[in-house]
């Protein structure tokens, strides 16, 4: 009983680590004619989030890898590496470049990035680092002014 309980706890921790580290990317098509600033109708919205866990803010424990392959249906990318930190601004921009390739347009607007650190949940021992990037993807050609 004790052994099976231990196995369950280990499996749960492993699942948590994979789920918690998994990068998240989503392309949502703009299924509407509602325009945004300047009367332009976007093609899609894009967001990517990547996570890493660090012991005492400096020893990398595990990380999600940036979304660099697959089609636009991918939301959670269960691609995890141990003892590395891939949650970086550059990697988010690599994912953005991949998303632009998938959608077929290189024009973007409202690009923003943000990072978030939380360590109190582990009494400051382990830091959960998150880097988020989002933007609107616009149609390849700007609409002509009326």
């Amino acid at each position: 009983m004790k052994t099976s309980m231990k196995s369950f706890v280990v499996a749960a921790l492993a699942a948590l680590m994979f789920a918690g580290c998994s990068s998240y990317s989503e392309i949502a098509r703009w299924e509407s004619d509602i325009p945004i600033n300047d009367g332009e109708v976007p093609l899609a919205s894009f967001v990517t989030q990547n996570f890493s866990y660090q012991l005492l803010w400096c020893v990398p424990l595990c990380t999600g890898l940036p979304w660099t392959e697959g089609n636009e249906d991918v939301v959670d990318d269960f691609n995890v590496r141990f003892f590395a930190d891939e949650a970086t601004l550059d990697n988010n921009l690599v994912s953005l470049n991949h998303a632009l390739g998938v959608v077929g347009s290189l024009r973007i607007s409202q690009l923003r990035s943000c990072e978030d650190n939380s360590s109190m949940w582990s009494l400051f021992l382990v830091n959960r680092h998150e880097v988020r990037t989002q933007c609107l993807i616009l149609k390849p050609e700007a609409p002509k002014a009326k």
Partner: protein
Amino acid sequence: MKKLIMKIGAAALIASAAGCASVTYSTPGIMDNTAVKGVKSVDGAQLVMIDTSGYYMFWTIPLVSGDLRWNDEKKSIEGGTSFFKDQVGLGELQNALMKIAESRNCDLAEVYYSDSDTTYAGASYGGAIGACFGSSQMCVSALLVPRRMSAK
């Protein structure tokens, strides 16, 4: 054993305090294939992300916070730490962003701020101790566009 736990706890707190402010730049050229609306060209442009956070007691007494300091020698902003002083705010982020843009001779585009607050009620039994403490985090990201590009 108790001493070891205390030492680890102290190391963890110091590490957290040291990570209260950061400035991150993307690699130049990583966005060269992209076209950003309203910007003539993003060749050589860099995305910069500035982040500060602080820990407070009763939301009003600052314990430790990130400090964005201008380094005159390196001509750049560096992340530092301030104790019992609140350095987390829109003004601090904006000043840091302006200094970075001016020192690199860049214009700014896509400037966005975000902030989040957390309380630690869940981190202690019954929430009574944790609820006394909270943290605030503010972030700004912007595109640094070299002036020679934007003047086209």
